């Protein structure tokens, strides 16, 4: 009987990333399979956001091999990389909520870019609004909602897009332990349902420890397993 085919959603081999003279990632290796929930922790400034953006194809590596959803990101080809990014989702550390549209619009934005019809978008976004507890705020703009709601909206944008690889940069920042637990539970449940690969970055190891399949630490530009 042959081994089940492995569905590798993200593969980084010997990846380095420098900004001028500053080397942030140094010969880093990482493999994330479908259905895996991986946490990367590390000190502030250790490069977690850079790692995530690199995985999201938003930053090119300075050296090394990057494979996202099985392909090397075609940075030069606008159409092709757009198509690839349609299958990815990321919650940004600064949330990246679009100031020019309301809560519904924020959730629906990436779906309209994928080319979904309005009715289908509505069918997906409306239930999500309820799950996220943003139902009544659906027509408010990001600057009119509370901090907690903003965070849920940022995370919700990823979930609603149903990406094959989901990236979360500091999803539970500033949340009390109970709410943080609930948010991580929501992400984990979503992962169970969709079988997506999930990569979470957080400066707080305690917040993520219980919930994840693998816990890695980013230190000196490389990843190592967290010693328990």
């Amino acid at each position: 009987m042959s081994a089940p085919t492995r569905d590798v959603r993200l593969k980084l081999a010997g990846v380095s990333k420098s900004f001028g003279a500053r080397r942030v990632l140094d010969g880093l290796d990482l493999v994330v399979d479908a259905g895996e929930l991986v946490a990367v922790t590390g000190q502030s400034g250790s490069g977690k956001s850079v790692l995530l953006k690199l995985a999201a194809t938003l930053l090119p590596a300075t050296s090394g091999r990057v494979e996202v959803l099985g392909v090397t990101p075609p940075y030069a080809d606008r159409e092709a990389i757009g198509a690839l990014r349609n299958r990815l989702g990321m919650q940004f550390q600064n949330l990246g909520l679009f100031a020019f549209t309301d809560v519904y619009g924020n959730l629906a934005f990436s779906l309209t870019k994928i080319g979904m019809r309005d009715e289908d978008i509505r069918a997906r976004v409306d239930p999500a609004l309820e799950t996220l507890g943003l139902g009544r705020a659906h027509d408010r703009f990001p600057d009119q909602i509370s901090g907690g709601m903003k965070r849920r909206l940022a995370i919700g944008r990823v979930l609603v897009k149903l990406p094959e690889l989901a990236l979360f940069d500091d999803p539970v920042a500033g949340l009390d332990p109970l709410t943080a637990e609930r948010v991580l539970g929501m992400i984990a449940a979503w992962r169970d349902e969709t079988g997506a690969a999930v990569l979470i970055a957080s400066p707080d190891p305690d917040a993520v420890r219980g919930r994840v399949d693998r816990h890695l630490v980013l230190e000196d530009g490389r990843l190592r397993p967290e010693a328990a």
Partner: protein
Amino acid sequence: MRWLGSLVSSAVDILALLAETLRSLKGVGRHPERLLAELSSIGTGSLIFLFATAAFMGVIIVFQTATQINKAIPDLSMLGAGFIRVMTAEMIPLLTGLMVSARVGSAISSEVASMVVTEQMDALRLANTDPTEYIVAPKLVASLVAVPILGLVSLATGITAGMLVGWIVFEIHPSTFLNFRYTYGYHFLSFCLKLLSFAVLIPLVSVIEGFRTGRQGAFSVGQAATRGVIMSSFFVFVADLSVSLLERGLWGAP
């Protein structure tokens, strides 16, 4: 001397951004709602402001000039003609440019800066949307439409206001104002050329300053807003002088 270097690099960046924006222009049709939003923000948002300042300008110029001339030669019949020419070729374009750069310059640069700081630009790219096409190009198009219109409205307002003052205070008959004897075709060309260059420069310069921001939250937004106003109004001056010199050089006196 460092600021001189930054001015030169700004000029280079403007050309680069212009090239990139022109390439994205055809994509603007895909997002008409952005274009409408920008038209409203740049155009109708500035209307009342320009209305008021143009009226003031017209009044003040007629006041000052008439008072001066009265002292030397008590013949105000030619005032209108000179006034129209100065307003068309110089005052109104410059005023429109400065007022628009004040209003729109800081708004655009701080908007872009806060988008960069909150990572909205990255989020757009991840949602398969090119920020230049979605954010920058609509601003440029809206500006190209709105600024000339604003200029024309200002011209009409300023001349009317000046005319009224001339009539009420100095008893100059309005008919002498509608005297285009001293205003030649190339003055109108100057007018249009100046407004068009402002329409291109102001949004591009402000966007560049917005993108140049650091990632330090509120501090960066404030810095960008400041630089947006300063740089766009400076380029307005430079463009204004360039066109005026060009006009003078090409068509000589007067």
